[in-house]
């Protein structure tokens, strides 16, 4: 009977941990994607500035 209680608890804990682990994978993925987006945003800003200063030169 004691074994029974223990195995039930173990199964519950495993399911809860699996949910936690999935969330860990999610935060990792989110961070990777964000790094990428930030670098994209930086590039865009740089390009925009450059084209601004260029057009300024022409005027």
């Amino acid at each position: 009977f004691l074994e029974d209680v223990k195995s039930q608890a173990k199964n519950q804990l495993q399911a809860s941990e699996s949910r936690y682990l999935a969330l860990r994978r999610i935060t990792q993925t989110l961070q990777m994607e964000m790094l990428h987006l930030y670098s994209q945003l930086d590039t865009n800003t740089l390009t925009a500035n450059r084209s601004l200063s260029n057009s300024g030169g022409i005027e």
Partner: protein
Amino acid sequence: AYYEKVGFRGVEEKKSLEILLKENPLDVEKLNTFSQRFPLPSMYRIHVWKVLLGILPPHNDSHSLVGGYRREQYQDVLEALTVMRFIQRATPQTLVYLRMFQLESQLLPRRSETTPPDNKDEDFLSVARAMEEIVEEPVDCYWLIKCFVNQFNNRFGDSIPHLPKSLEYYLSLEEPPLLNYLKITGALAMLPYGLWFRRCFAGCLPESSLQRVWDKVISGSCKILVFVAVEILLLYKIMLMNMSRPEGVVNFLCNMPQENTDAILEDTRPHPPTQHPMGFWTKW
């Protein structure tokens, strides 16, 4: 009289499954054996699959707690993928399941680098499409696809490459002339092994037959895939032996008429178990 007997047996089977399902904790071993020997009654199929695949634990009184965890996990993954724009409103549901599976297995490519599905993805998508036909509820459907695919690869990944040889062996017992014909024409090497042994007949057999094959796969048999393949070859023996080009054979087998395939499973029923070389196959 035969059908009466089958009908009677069906009722008895259903009753004995109901007794098994009332036990707390569930005896997973017994459920496995049941599922190996009998087709699961459709009203209990999804529940039994979830227990056999470990989506639900053996203790009945944990089911609502664990079921809640499973739902939250599903929602967390889905929400994150939406925010990251991996999936949109118009994304087909099976592709949603693939992306979720990839994220959870740490196989998700960067969004800017997503490529069209490769062979392995296509296998997953086939299984997903078939599961979608069987299971309506998306949370259950995703968990069943994920655990089915994971369990199949973990348990049988090493056996899959040997199944074509096994098929050849059983065919040599059952129907040597057909085997010879397939060898001579070169069709044997070209049979749709991927469809049969990696996709477990998803997209090949109609839902009603597929469910019964998957009952066996989920409860731990990959030999069943070989037996079904043999039965398909036997059923279409005459047609196949009239096709001279191996491409014709492959093409036919990849696009089998769906009405007849149900008969594959029904036809095997009346064989007395002792006279049929395929043991439990006859319990269908």
